[in-house]
């Protein structure tokens, strides 16, 4: 929803809160999450507005509101209530108004980690309204912020909500509203609440693997100044020589940096392909043509080209962000490509600002697989060429010289497995999202929790599939089975199933149960169990239960 994207109009969101809420209620829900709000001040409005932003991401929150200004007491003396609620997220809304006793926070974090597996979202501290009056206060605030970041670095289930940055960005003079503090105990101006909630929603959706994956970029007046077809390569404006050229150069550098974080770049431009090849050969360009995993440079409509890119990459367009200086192209794409996000500005000076502040690619933790993603997709392009040159698909698979590495989930692969679980949409039988602590539980003896790596002659795909099942007497019940869309149709699922069958035979398992839980994105797996010999035993709510009987001997 456009109203809920950067740049926000905070007052307008508050004014029309209930109307926005009503419109968003029609949206499809991807996940339902329990969120405990612990406060040092009033959180009522925060709850309402956060709900709107989460719905916009397809997340339906269930809230537990702590008692007013009692975050410490709620956790230390009334932990049972929290435990019973069993939250997925705990937001601790402290501000410089609560900056009394720093040791209290550390006690709270330790206690929370002990009683539940929720991800903790902790505000750092913003500069106070009366900052100049007390150097000591500023010093202790900075020390405490340091401490919060150190703790976050050492704990997987802990992220910082950078209140300090938000307040600075908003402007401290506007952020602090003494009248609203004294009258209603709002620690920040009511009109700044949407900015705060937007940031919280971004952290939550990022931790659930709902970040975008691909930046689809126009070329003329987006990656360089000028029109390639009219001005020629030499006439393009890029480089430090002119102010505008320097801005485009910096944008290209920024994109290269994003790519290094695992974000995929693609081109969607109305140009002749050969001209584009030439343009990227120009030494003034910071990006090279092979920095892009897909290049659609032709004269077709951009909505069609974006769908083509999606198909090539085996990704859904709702993981795309589209950047184009031309508002008409943006409008066309917004209307015709469901789920795609559009960067709503025409000015190169604003591109980075809009992309960053919308948090499309907000990194919480970067895994090794993120850093290698670009390479995987480049290799996939080579594989596609090889496939097109092969007589039949079986020969093609053989020619890839694939080796599968199936192994238990352990410390070395934990982060990647967790990420796959939380972001895989299409080949995902149950789409259960897990916290680190929940995944840890699946490593106990009664579970078979494995992951699969895949190498071939073009390179190492890394870990691309996860399987987890619970052993109940002589039955194995599959709770999780998912696979990266990078390796569809590569027989990974057959290899995993072979492994599982071997394991079952050793453990005298007689039956395997599987489940399909439908989501808007995983229809491709609806009949997956049938293809490997399971029989359907029940159907409910569009989903199904399946059974496989192991042969004797």
């Amino acid at each position, binding site marked *: 929803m456009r109203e809920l994207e950067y740049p926000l109009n905070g007052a307008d969101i508050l004014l029309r809160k209930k109307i926005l809420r009503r419109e968003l209620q029609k949206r499809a829900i991807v996940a339902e999450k329990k969120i405990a709000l612990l406060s040092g001040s009033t959180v009522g409005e925060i709850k309402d507005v956060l709900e709107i932003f989460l719905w916009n991401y397809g997340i339906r929150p269930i809230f537990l509101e702590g008692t007013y200004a009692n975050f410490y007491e709620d956790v230390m003396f009334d932990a049972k209530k929290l435990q019973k609620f069993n939250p997925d997220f705990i937001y601790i809304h402290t501000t410089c108004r609560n900056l009394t006793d720093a040791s209290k926070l550390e006690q709270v974090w330790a206690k929370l980690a002990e009683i539940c597996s929720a991800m903790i979202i902790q505000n750092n501290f913003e500069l106070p309204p009366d900052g100049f009056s007390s150097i000591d206060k500023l010093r202790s605030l900075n020390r405490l912020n340091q401490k919060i970041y150190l703790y976050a670095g050492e704990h997987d289930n802990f992220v910082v909500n950078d209140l300090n940055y938000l307040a600075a960005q908003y402007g401290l003079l506007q952020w602090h509203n003494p009248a609203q503090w004294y009258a209603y105990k709002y620690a920040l101006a009511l*009109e700044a609440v949407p900015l705060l909630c937007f940031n919280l929603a971004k952290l939550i959706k990022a931790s659930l693997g709902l970040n975008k994956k691909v930046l689809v970029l126009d070329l003329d007046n987006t990656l360089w100044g000028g029109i390639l077809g009219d001005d020629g390569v030499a006439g393009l404006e890029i480089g430090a020589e002119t102010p505008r050229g320097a801005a485009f150069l910096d944008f290209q550098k920024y994109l290269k940096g994003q790519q290094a974080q695992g974000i995929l770049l693609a081109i969607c431009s109305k140009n002749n392909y050969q001209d584009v090849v030439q343009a990227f050969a120009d030494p003034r360009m910071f990006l090279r043509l092979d920095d892009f995993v897909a290049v659609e440079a032709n004269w077709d409509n951009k909505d069609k080209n974006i769908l083509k890119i999606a198909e090539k990459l085996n990704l859904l367009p709702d993981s795309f962000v589209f950047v184009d200086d031309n508002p008409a192209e943006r409008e066309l794409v917004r209307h015709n490509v469901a789920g795609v996000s559009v960067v709503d500005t025409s000015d190169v000076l604003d591109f980075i600002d809009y992309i960053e502040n919308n948090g499309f690619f907000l990194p919480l933790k970067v895994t090794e697989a993120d850093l290698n993603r670009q390479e995987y997709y480049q290799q996939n392009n080579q594989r596609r060429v090889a496939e097109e040159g092969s007589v039949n698909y079986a020969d093609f698979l053989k020619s890839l010289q694939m080796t599968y590495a199936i192994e238990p989930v352990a410390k070395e692969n934990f982060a990647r497995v967790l990420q796959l679980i939380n972001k895989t949409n299409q080949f995902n039988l149950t789409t259960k999202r897990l916290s680190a602590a929940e995944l840890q539980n699946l490593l106990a003896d009664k579970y078979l929790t494995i992951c699969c790596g895949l190498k071939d002659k073009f390179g190492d795909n890394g870990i691309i599939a996860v399987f987890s099942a619970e052993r109940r007497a002589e039955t194995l019940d599959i709770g999780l089975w998912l696979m990266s869309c990078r390796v569809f149709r590569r027989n990974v699922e057959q290899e995993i199933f072979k492994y599982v069958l071997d394991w079952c035979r050793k453990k005298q398992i007689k039956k395997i149960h599987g489940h399909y839980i439908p989501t808007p994105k995983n229809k491709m797996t609806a009949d997956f169990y049938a293809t490997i010999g399971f029989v359907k035993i029940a159907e409910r709510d569009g989903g199904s239960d399946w059974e496989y009987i192991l042969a004797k001997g």
Partner: protein
Amino acid sequence: MTITEIKTKLREILENVLDEDILATDFMADSTNLRAWDSLSLVNIFVQTEKAFKIKLPLGKLATLNTMADLLAVIQENQSA
């Protein structure tokens, strides 16, 4: 700003913030009890009022704003001030 203009503007705020299926004119009666609305909405209405009329509701008066007549009066007072 005349009382009619003030009422028009205020009604717009109420329609948005409350988003309820009641005739907005009902809200505008002098006797409307502001305290019957939930506190979040009321705070929101006060803040939106300050913004729309470019005024500050005096801190000391907030607790005494109970009816629509009270709110209209305080808007008028502060506008002319």
